[in-house]
């Protein structure tokens, strides 16, 4: 296999953003008819690399070679013409238009008066759809399709040109099992036509089932390529995180207090069902699972952003009804949300004002906001969390991801919560800040905070949690203590392989 001409070859790709070297000399090649997995932790540079390949970013250095020809791609359209098609995780479709129009977006066949040649368009499209064996036709409005079928439309775009390489970014994230089967058939079909495929996924099961080779990135650098058939999960994990997992470091280092938060048989529509767990003072409970398993939705419910359809929430043994974030904050629950820029910060507002936002009503003298009190709070948490900013006047939008996250954490610590929920605490944050935030979470626990951490990164969950709740498809599959958890059992639980466990 290694003798064939690569469908796509990357040589020393470099891409820098202000302050960050997102890609640092990445090289690897994808052979025709090969499914090549690309793996790495969040922030390892996968998505940047894919944007470079998709023509969205221009590399600062290095070469992209398609079928032995060096190519430069200034736009996604150009990338498509050069034979590289990027199937986005977030669908980029116009929902009001037909399937055919979406597939040939920007390239509608037309006569010299600008009239669309519908017959030709529909014929071409139906031919592609037939090859994909889908159950809809070229005239269907895209908005009427299921998410899986919309994804098929994206894939169909790949087939309009002689694609040399197709990139799938987490393609199964929102698919049902039956839909996955269809997707895998399509990938097999592309394979048999000699297309090189880059497959990005966190799901080990799929990686081992679908791929031929695996390339691992870490911190923007190439870390090696493995032959899937001769690889174990441990090998991959080790390459991804750069060390053997050290499971001893989360040994309990202090006593837990009474149960601060108890959740009993909580359900919310189809989002999650029959959730029961408790968090004690001084304890960190980690929620692990795939995207869409219902973890964030539970956090949102506890913070009053969703109304549960059944079940009870108890705080310090007393049942509470949380109708809004205002209620939650009053009860002493704080949420560091998943999406820092959309939910956590007002980016156009300065750091200090962001940090004091939930308590600005209390920081007054007479009718006016008391500047000195605000500056004091900001100063305290700037020092405590080591937030790097020239002054409190800096706009939140101008800070790095790690410092932004610390502002959000500081905002909630300054409220002195009883229960602190942290959703994806280190998403998109550089490695240095990551370990600082991990240490911070442990410190807070030892000070007696009851903490819930939601994360999609296994090392993070293993590192910070005293107990781990594994979720799959809206249900708790198993609860582990730090002592008993193993990677294998955790992966089994969140892939829906284990039996659902009742937690009393």
């Amino acid at each position, binding site marked *: 296999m290694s003798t064939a001409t690569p469908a796509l070859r990357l040589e020393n790709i470099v891409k820098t953003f202000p302050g960050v070297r997102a890609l640092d000399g990445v090289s690897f090649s994808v052979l025709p008819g090969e499914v090549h997995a690309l793996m790495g932790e969040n922030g390892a540079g996968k998505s940047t690399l894919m944007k470079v390949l998709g023509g969205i970013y221009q590399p600062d250095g290095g070469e992209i070679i398609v079928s032995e020809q060096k190519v430069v791609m200034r736009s996604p359209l150009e990338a498509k013409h050069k034979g590289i098609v990027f199937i986005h995780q977030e669908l980029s479709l116009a929902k009001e238009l037909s399937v055919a129009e979406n597939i040939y977006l920007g390239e509608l066949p037309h006569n010299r008066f600008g009239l669309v040649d519908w017959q030709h368009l529909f014929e071409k499209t139906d031919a592609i759809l037939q090859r994909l064996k889908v159950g809809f036709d070229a005239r269907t409005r895209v908005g009427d399709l299921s998410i899986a079928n919309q994804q098929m439309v994206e894939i169909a775009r790949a087939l309009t040109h002689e694609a040399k390489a197709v990139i799938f970014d987490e393609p199964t994230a929102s698919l049902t099992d039956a839909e996955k089967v269809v997707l895998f058939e399509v990938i097999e079909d592309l394979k048999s036509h000699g297309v090189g495929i880059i497959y990005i996924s966190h799901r080990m099961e799929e990686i081992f089932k679908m791929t031929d080779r695996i390339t691992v990135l870490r911190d923007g650098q190439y870390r090696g390529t493995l032959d899937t058939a001769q690889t174990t999960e441990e090998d991959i994990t080790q390459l991804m995180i750069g060390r053997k997992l050290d499971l001893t470091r989360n040994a309990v280092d202090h006593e837990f207090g009474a149960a601060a938060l108890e959740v009993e048989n909580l359900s919310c529509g189809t989002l999650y069902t029959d959730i029961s767990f408790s968090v004690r003072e001084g304890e960190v409970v980690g929620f692990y699972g795939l995207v869409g398993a219902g973890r964030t939705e539970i956090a949102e419910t506890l913070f009053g952003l969703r109304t549960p359809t059944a079940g009870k929430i108890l705080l310090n043994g007393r049942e509470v009804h949380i109708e809004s974030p205002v209620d939650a904050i009053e009860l002493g629950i704080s949420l560091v949300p998943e999406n820092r820029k959309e939910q956590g910060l007002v*980016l156009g507002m300065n750091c200090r004002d962001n940090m004091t936002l939930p308590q600005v009503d209390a920081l007054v003298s007479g009718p006016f*906001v008391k500047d000195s009190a605000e500056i004091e709070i900001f100063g305290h948490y700037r020092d405590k969390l080591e937030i790097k900013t020239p002054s409190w006047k800096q706009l939140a939008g101008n800070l790095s991801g790690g410092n932004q996250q610390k502002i959000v954490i500081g905002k909630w610590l300054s409220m002195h919560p009883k229960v602190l929920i942290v959703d994806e605490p280190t998403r998109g944050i550089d490695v240095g800040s990551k370990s600082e935030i991990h240490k911070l979470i442990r410190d807070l626990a030892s000070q007696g905070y009851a903490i819930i951490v939601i994360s999609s990164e296994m090392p993070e969950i293993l590192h910070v949690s005293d107990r781990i709740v594994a979720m799959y498809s809206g249900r708790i599959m198993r609860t582990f203590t730090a002592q008993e958890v193993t990677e294998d059992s955790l992966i089994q639980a969140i892939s829906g392989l284990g039996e659902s466990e009742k937690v009393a």
Partner: protein
Amino acid sequence: MAGWTRSDIGGFLAKQGILIAFFLFIIGFTIANERFLAPENIMGVVRSSAILGVMALGVTFVVISGNLDLSVGSMMSFSTIVVLDLHDKLGPALAIPAMFALTLCLGALIGFLVGYLKLNSLIVTLGMLSAIHGLTLTYSGGKNMDIADKGGTWFSIFGQGEIFGIPVPILIFVGLAALLGIVLARTPFGRKVYAVGGNGVAATFSGIRRARIVFACYLLSSFCVATAGLIQASRSLGSQNTVGQGLELEVLAAVILGGASLLGGSGTIFKTIIGVLILGFIQNGLLLVGLQFYAQYVVTWIIIILAVWLDIAAKRGRLWSPLA
């Protein structure tokens, strides 16, 4: 100026561009006509800008909170007509609070629709523009409203009176501007208005009751409108049903000119006042240099586009849009 890069200068120009333009205008007009800077002329400009200005104060809150208000013009007609009508029926002492109450009800309705029901503010206030106009016409029966005894009422003080030689409309404008400027800049409420407009989701995630803030902004806006209606009614003591027609857009123009973003989260009362004064001085200055009255519209148009353009050009770091 050593150490200044081109982008620094560009950024400075964009940030303070509107003030610079303001001073350039003043200098230009002063050179063209020395009467321009005479105290009585300035007083005249501020005085004639007072109604627009008072309304712009309220709309500034609405715009910073991330919404629009196109209904202020027709609401102002409503206030004017109502207070003139009630003046003769109830007497001025009762007519004024009654009119304020009715106008605040309209503001509360809009605030409810936009804040609590989360309807699109552009369309809601567009609908309310039409509906309130209809309400005004129904109320007045389509006729002009006049106070019977124009000479014998203290009601005229709000529009025509002077205290220590300063016209009352100016005092009202300045007083309200100072009050609302402080509310916006220094109180928790003002802070929340910025947060809601800057990022409504993040504000909710921070425990701010977004709907309540939006509601309050519309209520405040209707209060300003009622005040403007009072000045208008008191100044003319008689009015057509359409006295405020089109003002909503001039008000919005002044607010945008001051640098508030239609996306919300930015703007200040001070900047809005500058916006109002620019509109006023352009109108006055062009007349003084002998251009006809309507040239001000064309100049306003050009200034609005330039002001917003420079602002976004500075943010994106290039003059022309990258759009293909």
